[in-house]
């Protein structure tokens, strides 16, 4: 029985939905007529509806389908359902068929209103039903789609939601995260150069997201500079800015050694101040994953994690790999190697033989930059390991920090800090999980950058060159050219004799 009004509905859907309010009427009346066929206890009502239906058909012949219902709204509108779009309701009580009452809505704009119960319809169904059982407030049939007038997020609510999420995550950390987390001490060697702002900004954001207390020891080659100091001051991370007396050399080999000495200086600072926590070496150009900080909380004395080595130059050196290397590509990971029972047996190191002839020798050379044999960033240890007084439990396999480097020898890797490397704990599922990546991206040593990355004084206004790639733009489109110039925010390759920097939007 209800299939008929289903097709009726799809016909109505084909028409425009502008006066969608009246479409509901069409659904109502065949149901009403079928209701009248089904029920047999009010013959006068059924013939009345039948006559009404016939009248509607006649009117719709002349005025069109939708307007027939409009007549009845104007004539009989007493109680009206106010919905945002349209409504037809079929009110049913427990076991009886009731009349369907339809009061279509015309052109009210969408407003959020409460539903007013249609009292007359309920009374009608009350009279008709023999059982006086409770009526469901939920009605079957077509409902309006409620849309509020401004369906966009409210900023206060968004902030409240973020507070809730923060609280939930705090609770999650409490139950499932690291119990009694230790503070972190992060040692970073740096120096002022073009790419420093790039690297340090990434590192600062990473450290700000770490959920544990962080003390950041920044060792700067060449003494304390305003560049670094201003970056650190804005960082909102607790830091110690330590000057290092040498300048950073240009040769990569020398650089690695200088950085090692800077890190040792950082370790000595920890020793002097008896700082407590877990020591991590974060080079400013490395990329860290937040999982790393959760993982290193597990370290007892000295631990090692896997470092992904991203040493590609990205240049045209495609013939680097030999044939059998193409079959077994070298894994660019430096870290602990374990046997099947999870014990440390050795180290994976980066295979630098394929790159030996083509590696960069000085900073800014466009060739592959190779890492050292054993990167410091892959090692973490308990700060108590380097304290002066032998704390209870400090193992014997640790060398005293003062004895390292006293003869002037260079420290290649943190394994020089220990007598026996087999005591190092492999972290990150025995090195299988790579949580930080080493890469070296540097500009040429003599490249200039605006100090503090502030352009002061502002650049002069530049008039764009008239000669553009579009040859047809002569006097005909002379003004159009200027308009185009104003619109284009990125200057395309202009064939101008002088090349000046332009800021977006500062055209003619």
């Amino acid at each position: 029985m209800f299939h008929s009004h289903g097709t009726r509905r799809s016909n109505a859907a084909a028409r425009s939905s502008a006066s969608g309010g009246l479409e509901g009427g069409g659904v109502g009346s065949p149901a009403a007529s079928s209701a009248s066929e089904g029920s047999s206890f009010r013959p006068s009502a059924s013939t009345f509806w039948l006559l009404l239906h016939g009248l509607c058909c006649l009117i719709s012949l002349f005025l069109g389908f939708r307007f027939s219902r409009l007549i009845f709204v104007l004539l009989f509108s007493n109680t009206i359902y106010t919905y945002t779009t349209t409504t037809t309701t079929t009110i049913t009580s427990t076991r009886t068929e009731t009349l369907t009452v339809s009061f279509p809505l015309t052109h009210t704009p969408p407003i959020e209103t409460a539903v007013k119960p249609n009292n007359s319809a309920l009374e009608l169904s009350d009279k008709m039903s023999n059982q006086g059982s409770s009526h469901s407030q939920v009605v079957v049939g077509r409902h309006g789609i409620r849309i509020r007038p401004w369906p966009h997020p409210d900023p206060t609510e968004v902030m409240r939601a973020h507070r809730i999420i923060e609280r939930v995550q705090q609770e999650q950390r409490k139950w499932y995260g690291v119990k009694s987390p230790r503070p972190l001490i992060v040692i970073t060697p740096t120096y002022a150069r073009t790419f420093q702002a790039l690297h340090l900004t990434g590192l600062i954001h990473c450290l700000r997201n770490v959920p544990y207390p962080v003390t950041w020891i920044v060792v700067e080659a060449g003494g304390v500079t305003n560049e670094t100091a201003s970056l650190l001051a804005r960082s909102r991370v607790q830091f110690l800015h330590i000057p290092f007396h040498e300048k950073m050399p240009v040769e990569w080999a020398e650089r690695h050694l200088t950085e090692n000495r800077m890190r040792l200086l950082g370790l000595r600072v920890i020793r002097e101040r008896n700082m407590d926590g877990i020591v991590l070496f974060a080079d400013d150009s490395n990329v860290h994953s937040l999982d790393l900080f959760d993982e290193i909380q597990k370290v007892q004395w000295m631990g090692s994690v896997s470092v992904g080595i991203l040493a590609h130059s990205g240049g045209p050196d495609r013939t680097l790999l030999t044939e059998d290397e193409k079959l077994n590509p070298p894994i660019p990971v430096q870290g602990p190697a374990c046997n099947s029972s999870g014990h440390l047996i050795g180290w994976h190191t980066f295979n630098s033989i394929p790159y030996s002839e083509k590696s960069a020798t000085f900073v800014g050379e466009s060739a592959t930059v190779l890492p050292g044999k054993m990167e410091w960033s892959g090692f973490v240890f308990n700060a108590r390991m380097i304290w002066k007084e032998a704390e209870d439990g400090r193992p014997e396999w640790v060398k005293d920090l003062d004895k390292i480097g006293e003869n002037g020898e260079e420290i290649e890797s943190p394994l020089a800090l220990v007598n026996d490397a087999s005591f190092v704990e492999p972290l990150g599922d025995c090195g299988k999980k790579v949580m930080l990546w080493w890469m070296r991206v540097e500009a040429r040593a003599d490249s200039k950058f605006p100090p503090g990355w502030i352009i002061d004084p502002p650049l002069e206004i530049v008039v764009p060159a008239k000669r553009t790639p579009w040859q047809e733009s002569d006097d005909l489109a002379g003004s159009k050219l200027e308009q185009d110039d104003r619109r284009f925010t990125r200057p395309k390759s202009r064939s101008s004799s002088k090349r000046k920097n332009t800021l977006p939007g500062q055209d003619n």
Partner: protein
Amino acid sequence: MGKEIWVVALLLSQALLLPIAQAAELHTERISGSAGDVLEDDPVGRLKVFVYNLPRKYNKKMVDKDSRCLTHMFATEIFMHRFLLSSAVRTLDPEEADWFYTPVYTTCDLTPGGHPLPFKSPRIMRSAIQYVAMNWPYWNRTDGADHFFVTPHDFGACFHYQEETAIQRGILHLLKRATLVQTFGQRNHVCLKEGSITVPPYAPPQKMQAHLVSPSTPRSIFVYFRGLFYDVNNDPEGGYYARGARASVWENFKSNPLFDISTDHPPTYYEDMQRSVFCLCPLGWAPWSPRLVEAVVFGCIPVIIADDIVLPFADAIPWEEIAVFVAEKDVPSLDTILTSIPAEVILRKQRLLANPSMKQAMLFPQPAQAGDAFHQILNGLARKLPHDRRVYLKPGEKVLNWTAGPIGDLKPW
């Protein structure tokens, strides 16, 4: 003598208080509904169920014909049968049974697309009842009042997918006195009988376990939902499907960054639920959906948008304390409602959801485990015992009218 007893009692109470104080620090919380702390009750020993041996055409033959019946959300009827056959509550002696189970699969006639056709279901059920009434005396003894049936379809024993038709048909007359175990539940609705047991829809437990992530993964999505907002095939303009509630959710919150809602079904659906604080469970064509089960298993607070819905095992599980109920008319202010829930309330709901007995109660694992949905159904049946004296008919007394209902139902199957 009395003084010593008092001292001992004091010491004992002190010893008891300590673990209670410690329990308050756990990340789960005990669940007790209106029937009490019944989720962990063991039904064995509290009731006896006799399983009728029906011919293959009522059950096994249907599954053999189409094995998709075993994986869709209506598979409860099949797994309940299998569970009862090997359960400790089963008795082979019908004289001592408290409940009688008729294993008839009424939801196993599938279209090529996998949707069950309900058109023959009333006849199948009628035929099964007639078989039972003719071959055993227990049906006529009570006219079915101590029998129970599993009817997991959209609107239960009304046997139709379209709500208007289902209401018109009403519950099959012959099931008037029996207990129905069904997924559909809505207050004051024709298709929910007094005394029915509402159960969750079947969701494959192994599939969900395979996608579990570590509980320390931070929950960073505020509200999550994946599913249809408009059913374009059957209701293109909207307004019928979900009583307009799903369309309202879309129109109001599609541009809200807190709401991760879309019709796209990603392969990380289960993992994403575990990264969400709230999961929407709005009604569709019927008020229930497997989303509730998924939300409970993955610890995401369900936001129920379905007026008057009756949730599974409503007397054993205090859903008001666990889920968030939003009236359909309040959907446009859903963001205000959800963001104004105090954080302690949210944390408590998460603790209740973390309770493993809560998750177990929503699942139908194979083989059955203690505290799972099968056991909750038996617990529900046990709580209805003992049967009222008046249930047993006097000889010659008849209550059911075997010719009631639409003419089409009376055709034999």
